[in-house]
């Protein structure tokens, strides 16, 4: 291993073209593989403690297998470390890697979409970070990481320097080549010239944590965690039903009165869920910094144990979503995520695109507006998008939602209860049926009205706004020039109602953003003015088939 120097050592400086010498990733990377042993070791330790110090022979075998796996992984990592070289030339980022099949990739700097720097706790202990470069063209929406490149792992300072360098060649500012101190000094002057522009959009704020438990996942998450804990205990050979704690709980539940123990159990469940949500919020959002870099890219840094840093080039940023799930909306909170290309497949995109956790709605709107306004190189023409008034959708959309709720949620359950009650001569079920109808109909009506009020669209400056959803209401703002394609979908029922669903496709985010139940006669003019040049070939301007 190449000693403990803080910068990556130049290796084999045979550089035929103009460019920097080839560099290798850091040797300490290999140490990170030893963390593979942590999980098995911890579970063996826990099992021994729980069983009172006796170790079953099976656990030794499992531990041995884990050790072998760790050695193999380390050897593999060592080989990979020894063969991976990278460098940046004036025009491209180049990477050579591979033990058996050697491959050499060259990504033109102009095609780099985003650069992430991630560090899990092991990497952080070792002062390392993983750099992930996503490039345009290959991956598209296909999913795999084919279009991107991972460098595992670099010294943290080197990763940050490389990120600045890679994104510097992408934006309008050319002088990022010399390294971070020089470039930030140069571009600082340029940023100062652009008035009314604050590079820092959001910082660290613990008060946002109070909104973290406002999700239905508080209950589901506890059950899921309990399930996986059970599986883990079972895997260690401990039957959770036979532990002392389980016996104690069973005794309490049996002895106490149910109207005391059941609410107590629910309260414990909710408390655990809230604690989990807060812990997750701390881990995910500690030290948040959302800011525009001097090169005009949007940078997001966050994380307590695992730190992640996502940088999106301004050209790949297509818009932003103000996300208001039902409970958070009731509390006046909203979260923000970016609509950006090159953040990986849909799952990865969901992990990388959040910009702000549930926060005060005003703060969320401010951050969203800052993202939409653009970085230091956008002109002053982009006004604040928050003030746009949305156009509502036709009244028939409300009726469609009410009918949908009644047909899908109320009718089947009520009919099943009534039918069973009649067939089995159980009057209880009949009572259940009418009670259910009595409760469900107003609930459906309220939700349908809320869903109807959510619907809206507008054009505002450089953006188009789409809003829909009740359990999870999203206000999507898309750059108008980012709309890649338009789709209009309808069913026989929606055509009779005179509505159509419009989908704007963008190369990133969720790929398509759907606006349900727009008035059919408004849909095409809206789409045509929002993103001109797409529908033009097929428009009929007269009355047509009148």
């Amino acid at each position, binding site marked *: 291993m190449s000693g403990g120097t803080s910068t990556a050592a130049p290796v084999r400086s045979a550089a035929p073209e103009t460019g920097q010498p080839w560099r290798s990733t850091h040797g300490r990377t290999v140490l990170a593989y030893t963390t593979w042993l942590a999980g098995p070791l911890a579970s063996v330790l826990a099992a021994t403690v729980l069983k009172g110090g006796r170790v079953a022979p099976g656990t030794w075998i499992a531990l041995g297998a884990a050790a072998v796996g760790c050695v193999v992984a380390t050897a593999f990592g060592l080989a990979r470390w020894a063969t991976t070289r990278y460098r940046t030339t004036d025009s491209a980022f180049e990477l050579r890697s591979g033990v058996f099949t050697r491959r050499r990739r060259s990504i033109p700097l102009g095609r780099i979409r985003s650069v992430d720097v991630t560090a899990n706790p092991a990497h952080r202990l070792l002062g390392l970070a993983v750099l992930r470069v996503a490039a*345009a063209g290959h991956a*598209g*929406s296909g999913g795999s990481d084919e279009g991107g490149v991972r460098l595992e792992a670099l010294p943290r300072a080197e990763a940050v320097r490389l990120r600045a360098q890679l994104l510097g060649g992408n934006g309008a500012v050319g002088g990022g080549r010399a390294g971070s101190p020089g470039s930030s000094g140069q571009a600082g002057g340029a940023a100062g010239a652009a008035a009314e522009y604050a590079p820092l959009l959001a910082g660290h704020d613990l008060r946002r944590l109070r909104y973290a438990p406002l999700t239905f996942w508080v209950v589901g998450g506890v059950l899921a965690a309990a399930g996986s804990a059970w599986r883990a205990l079972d895997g260690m050979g401990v039957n959770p039903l036979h532990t002392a704690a389980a016996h104690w709980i069973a005794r309490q539940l049996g002895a106490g009165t149910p109207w005391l123990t059941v609410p107590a159990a629910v309260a414990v469940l909710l408390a655990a869920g809230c604690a989990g949500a807060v812990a997750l919020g701390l881990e995910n959002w500690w030290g948040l910094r959302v800011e525009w870099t001097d090169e005009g890219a949007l940078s997001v840094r966050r994380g307590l144990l695992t730190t992640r840093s996502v940088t999106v080039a301004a050209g790949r940023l297509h818009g932003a979503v103000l996300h208001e799930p039902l409970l958070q909306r009731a509390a006046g909170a909203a979260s923000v995520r970016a609509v950006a*290309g090159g953040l990986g497949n849909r799952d990865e995109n969901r992990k990388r695109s959040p910009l702000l956790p549930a926060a005060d709605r005003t703060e969320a709107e401010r951050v969203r507006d800052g993202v939409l306004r653009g970085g230091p190189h956008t002109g002053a023409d982009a006004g604040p998008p928050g003030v746009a008034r949305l156009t509502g959708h036709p009244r028939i959309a409300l009726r469609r939602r009410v009918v949908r709720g009644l047909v899908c949620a109320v009718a089947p359950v009520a009919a099943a209860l009534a039918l069973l009650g009649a067939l089995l001569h159980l009057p209880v079920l009949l009572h259940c049926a009418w009670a259910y109808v009595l409760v469900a109909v107003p609930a459906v009506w309220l939700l349908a009205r809320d869903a109807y009020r959510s619907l809206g669209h507008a054009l505002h400056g450089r953006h188009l706004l789409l809003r829909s959803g009740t359990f999870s209401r999203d206000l999507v703002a898309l750059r108008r020039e980012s709309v*890649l*394609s*338009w*789709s*209009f*979908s*309808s*069913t*026989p029922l929606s*055509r009779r*109602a*005179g*509505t*159509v669903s419009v*989908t*704007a*496709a*963008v*190369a*990133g985010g969720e*790929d*398509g*953003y759907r606006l349900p139940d727009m*008035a*059919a*006669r*408004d*849909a*095409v*003019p809206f789409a*045509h003015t929002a993103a001109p*040049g*797409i*529908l*033009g*070939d*097929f*428009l*009929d*301007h*007269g*009355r*047509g*088939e*009148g």
Partner: protein
Amino acid sequence: MPVPTTANSPSPPPSSQPPGGSARGAAVGSSATPGPYATPVPHLRPPRHRAHPRARRWWTVQALLTLSGPMLLTALALAALSLLFFPSALGWLGPLLLGVLVLPALAYLLAMPALRIRVHAWELGEHTVYAAGGWYWQRHRITPLARVQTVDTVRGPLQRRFGLATVVVTTASTAGDVRIAGLALADAEELAQRIGAAAGLETGDAA
């Protein structure tokens, strides 16, 4: 019924030509404005070229193989079993099978191809490609040729039997991808080539 031969003619017919039969899939924006008060707003006209007539048989066979056939067979088997072993159950099982399996299967078998042949259509504009598809859920999609990444001609074993092909156009967004199904093979290849040429791609055949 006009046979979609226009894929062979490089210049589309003049716009005065009516788009085939009157019972077409509704153009977006036109269906909901029946009143005389409707001001002239721009709306999308339907695409000009329709799926090949053979496609209807292809969709019928597809329906038989995927959904209708298995459902009918299940109903038949259950009815036979009931007739052999529980003749008394036929009184309530018969209507149940009819309502749950036989009628939906027949409805799908008859309605899906008939609706699809009316809805499926395509047209290549100067800068965009326009496709309509679906049967119950119908979708009209317009994608600029400049955003096209790949163009493929796909032929499944069943489509090959009917001499048909599907043109698949992909973009950087799954919500922008266009599929034009039920084209005659020659038309499909021609269309793929024209899209590829217009998009400035090297034509890729996945056939």
